[in-house]
């Protein structure tokens, strides 16, 4: 028994001894096919752009990015995560779009003590009781953008709201967030299948409630179809649409076009934000990919910057997990959204803005920032997080 303990101690010491890696491996798993693909593609492109600007390096070390498609399927994502962790032995993971996939893949990543930098999915579970030292969200907690819309709808005095959202963890976070700040009447919460594309039955139901406002959270292809069908059903005459930034960003605007105009939405970032980092990001993204970046792209970009700064901070010694965690928490990079800091649950404390879709000076249909809804806003679950 003493011998075994000694061996164990030796092994632990070996594992604990920090040495500088010769390269940084990042496992990037995201939704790159199907109707949700636009989101994953934007995160990937934003991430790659940041990497390119750093000369293909993260913290002055050559970076290797392994990209895989989860097909919006939790089981596929789990298999990919296993491969990343066991075979490729990645230093960081990132990329997952949907919260149900994040919750499926997360446990294996944390078990393996690999840092996951979420560039999108921010489930309430990982902000509260299941918070984890190895999970960071560089974007937001799921509820936040919905809270911002709820506040705005409440302030504007709307009285009869219908909520449409997919029936999955992210959708439930959306309803919880919206209702945390909207105190008026909710005529109905309509939960649809995740990935549903035909909303004829739901829209008929919406019409029967005669709402003055409709709040919908349908990312990717779901939102594209929903807005088109909403306008086609003639509902836009009496009902004002509100959405979190996810459902009213460049991917949806490009696909839907003019019917998007006048939709109010919330975001922690906008392409017209006035800071040097953002101007460079937006200009170079357009040059590289020929389209305006979405909030997803800004999140992917920030995720890469965050890894870069942390690796530089620990001088490449990514095996020293405690030091790396401190470096990540310190947040030494300049985000394209302006300044923010991490809360004790590794989720951002930041501002949230109101945007509206309209025509800009060049005649493009795009988002315009209208004002600030929340200043230095934290999520509602941080109190349940026992992490020190």
């Amino acid at each position, binding site marked *: 028994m003493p011998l075994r303990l000694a061996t164990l101690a030796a092994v632990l010491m070996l594992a604990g001894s920090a040495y500088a890696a010769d390269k940084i491996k990042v496992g990037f798993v995201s939704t*790159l*096919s*199907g*109707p949700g*693909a*636009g989101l994953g*593609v934007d995160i990937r492109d934003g991430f790659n752009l940041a990497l390119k600007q750093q000369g293909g390096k993260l913290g002055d070390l050559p970076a290797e990015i392994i990209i895989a*498609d989860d097909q919006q399927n939790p089981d596929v994502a789990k298999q990919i995560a296993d491969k990343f962790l066991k075979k490729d032995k990645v230093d960081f993971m990132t990329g997952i779009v949907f919260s149900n996939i994040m919750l499926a893949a997360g446990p294996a990543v944390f078990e393996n003590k690999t840092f996951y930098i979420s560039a999108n999915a921010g489930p309430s579970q990982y902000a509260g009781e299941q918070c984890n030292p190895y999970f960071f969200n560089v974007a937001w907690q799921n509820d936040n953008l919905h809270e911002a819309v709820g506040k705005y709808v409440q302030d504007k005095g709307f009285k009869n709201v219908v909520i449409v959202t997919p*029936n999955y963890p992210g*959708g*439930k976070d959306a*309803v919880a967030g919206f209702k945390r700040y909207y105190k008026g009447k909710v005529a*109905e*919460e*309509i*939960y*649809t*299948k995740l990935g549903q*594309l*035909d909303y*004829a*039955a*739901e829209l*008929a*139901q919406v*019409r*029967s409630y005669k709402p003055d406002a409709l709040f919908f959270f349908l990312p990717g*292809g779901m939102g*594209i*179809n929903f807005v*088109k*069908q909403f*306008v*086609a*059903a*003639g*509902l836009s005459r009496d009902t004002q649409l509100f959405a979190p930034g996810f459902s009213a960003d460049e991917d949806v605007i490009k*696909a839907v*076009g003019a*019917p998007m105009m006048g939709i109010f939405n919330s975001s922690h970032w906008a392409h017209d934000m006035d800071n040097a980092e953002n101007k460079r990001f937006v200009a170079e993204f357009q040059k590289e990919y020929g389209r305006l970046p979405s909030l997803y792209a800004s999140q992917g970009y920030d995720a890469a910057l965050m890894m870069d700064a942390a690796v530089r901070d620990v001088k490449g010694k990514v095996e020293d997990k405690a030091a790396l965690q401190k470096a990540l928490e310190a947040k030494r990079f300049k985000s394209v959204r302006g300044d923010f800091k991490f809360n004790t649950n590794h989720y951002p404390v930041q501002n949230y803005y109101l945007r509206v879709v309209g025509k800009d000076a060049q005649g493009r249909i795009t988002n315009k920032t209208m004002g600030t809804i929340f200043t230095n806003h934290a999520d509602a679950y941080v109190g349940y997080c026992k992490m020190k």
Partner: protein
Amino acid sequence: MTQLILEQALNGLQFGLMLFLLAAGLTLVFGIMDCINLAHGSLYMVGAYFVAAAAQAADSFWIGLAVGVAGAAVLGLLLEVALFRRLYRRDHLSQVLATFALILIANEAVRAIWGPAAIMLNPPEALAGPVAFPLFGEEFFYPAYRLVIIAVGLAVATLLYLLVAKSRVGMWVRAGAANREMTEALGVNVRALFTAVFVFGAALCALAGGLLGPLLAVQVGMGESVLILAFVVIIIGGIGSIRGALVGSLIVGTVDTLGRALLPTLLRATLPADAAATLGSALASILIYLLMAGILFFKPQGLFPARA
């Protein structure tokens, strides 16, 4: 309330008619040639991609639809001559294996050519809005594009009925479905008839795929889920019967739409919204299969068996 019921009924009709376009081809191929074609859904997918590609190239949805449907018909012809002709006389297991392989090939080919992201088609500009008309003193709204789909579906159903029930070719088709050997013995060129039916089925698939493109999304794997429903339709309606396919499609379309719309609302009386939605949509999808089981219990051959 009238608006809600009428709107849901039209939605059910629209969904049912699109199912009919798929089921019509499937039931003829299955009924007449005794060939299980699992790749029927792939023809629907490839047809939709053809329509999407042609519509984007021509910048006109209608030209795209015509070109796409013609393209799918040509593809159907090539498939029939190269592959299906060899499968008719084999057993069902070989047919299932071969056509399942076709599904995999079609999915990967589409992914290789058009990429993994879904194509979001837009309906023609003029049909993007709603149509309004007075009804019982209220104004009734319905999307113009869905009305057009219903009209096209009804027109194709009428055409098919006239073709199968009134024309000479239709008589051969019905005869072939009822008794293939006897029809051959009477001197009908069954091989050419088979080819024609298969090509026609492929064109109907592409028509459904193209029309549904702007309402759904043109994407890899879109054929598989709808194929299962199409099989349910032809089993309910009776294999080989066009009339059965029409009635079956309308039943399945209506039951599915109403189930999806009404069950969560009914369950909402006793359950919270998210639980009602989970249970409701699960029950709604079970409903179709319960219906199928019920119909098969009383009518094992389906509602309108072709081989009476």
